[in-house]
């Protein structure tokens, strides 16, 4: 099972910092996502240093916000990447496999 099966999200960019929201479709899945989709796992999945990723939690919206400092190779004005904004990062994160739920 992938994160995409249980959640949706959106990427934003400010300068060289990207942020990705991850929002559970169903409230009953949120605790599981909270335990599984940690800042460390997100960093590893997106090949970012763990220290660069901060997670904020909004439980009433079943939402998490991941902030990735320095993730955009200089940001939209300098980056040579095809997607210099990093708009696609949310879709890449939603490919993350979930740890099997045995509860």
């Amino acid at each position, binding site marked *: 099972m992938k994160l*995409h099966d249980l959640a*949706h*999200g*959106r990427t*934003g*960019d*400010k*300068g*060289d*910092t990207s*942020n990705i*929201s991850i*929002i559970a*479709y169903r409230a009953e899945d949120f605790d599981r996502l909270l335990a599984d989709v940690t800042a460390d796992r997100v960093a590893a999945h997106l090949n970012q240093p763990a220290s660069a990723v*901060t997670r*904020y939690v*909004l439980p*009433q*919206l079943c*939402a998490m*916000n991941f*902030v990735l400092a320095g993730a955009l190779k*200089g*940001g*939209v*004005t*300098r980056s*040579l*990447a*095809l997607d210099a904004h990093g708009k696609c990062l949310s879709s890449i994160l939603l490919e993350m496999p979930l740890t099997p739920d045995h509860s």
Partner: protein
Amino acid sequence: MKPFRIGCGAGFQGDRIEPATDLANRGALDVLVFECLAERTIALAQKARLDDPNGGYDPLLERRLRATLPGCAKHGTKIITNMGAANPRAAAKKARAIVADLGLSLKVATVTGDDVSDRIADFILDETHQPASALGQRMVSANAYIGISGVVEALSQGADIVICGRASDPALFLAPLVHHFGWAMDDYEKLGRGTLIGHLLECSAQITGGYFADPGVKDVPDIANIGFPFAEVTADGNAVVTKLENTGGTVTPATCTEQLLYEIHDPARYLQPDVVADFSKVTFEAIGTNRVAVRGAAGHPPTGQLKVSVAYRDGWQGEGQISYMGINARARAELARSILDQRLDAPDIQERLGHLIGSDDHTRLRYTARCTSAATARLIGEEVESLYLCGPAAGGGVSKSVREIIAIASTLMPSDSVLLRSDLLGVNDEAA
């Protein structure tokens, strides 16, 4: 008191115009906001102003105003916009001319003061760790993200169209709410709530189903005819976000939650010129079809500092692309890349990227580099193009481009060193 109706007619410089026209004609709005300035846009506008003293404002200003002014005039809808970019005064004169040409009678005001290029020199930039003065002639512009006071003053003077340059995006929406409801500038809960409404609306269709559709998972009805959003705001600062009937798209707690966190770092501390907004306890409730109740934002006193964006010339980017298809396509694309790596050895290539896009039997090579000089940047595309004759078999479909890189650096400036002024355009400005 009936709800105040505020809509968004543009979320970026290149946004669609038809949904804004629809809002102007059918929305019976109190205010329509056009947010058209991204980080870099004002630097490009400043370059345009250097070429033409009457230029430097949004190139789509005339089309947007001509399309929406008749509807806005009919409903008494005021327009607030940052389409003034690097030259609000020239934009306002243009607006006055359009108003007259349409046979309307509307007052146009400018808000200026965001240009801080004359006092930025000693400020240390976050990205370069050096004072702005070290950029020398490379600096193009320096603009503070201003708050609401200038726009509120313009509205108090009776302006129907308020044109500013760099302002905090949510401030374009917060200002008319403060003016209409008479919120105090130290009522931080209300300022936080108004900021939330601005933040939710400022990217136009991103809250009505744009930047959202994921076929089979998050389907959006009739997205081709997507409507732009508006909010019905009550005096307590809470609101219902919705869109016009008979438009495409969808407004749900899911679209609202995605937009709430768009370009947000700490949701409890969204730094704005007039307030530190707190979105951490916000709730969304679907109360009807395409109607979402927004509640629970809060606010705290502002930091006393304004963000300043400094734009500077940072070299040139050159790019070329070429496609290989059919048998052994990927290997030929890889060979093309290796040829370019060898041929492009100019010392002023600072960074390069050659990557393969597509599948093994339909591969497009994109080769791009950041260079100190425009001449070297041009060479990138030229070497890609010459692969037609001097490269692997059967390369086709070359495209090439060169652009000057305008980089952005940031710093903070005390709010009290940025003085704003609003001016109603007088009769003498009409002929200009």
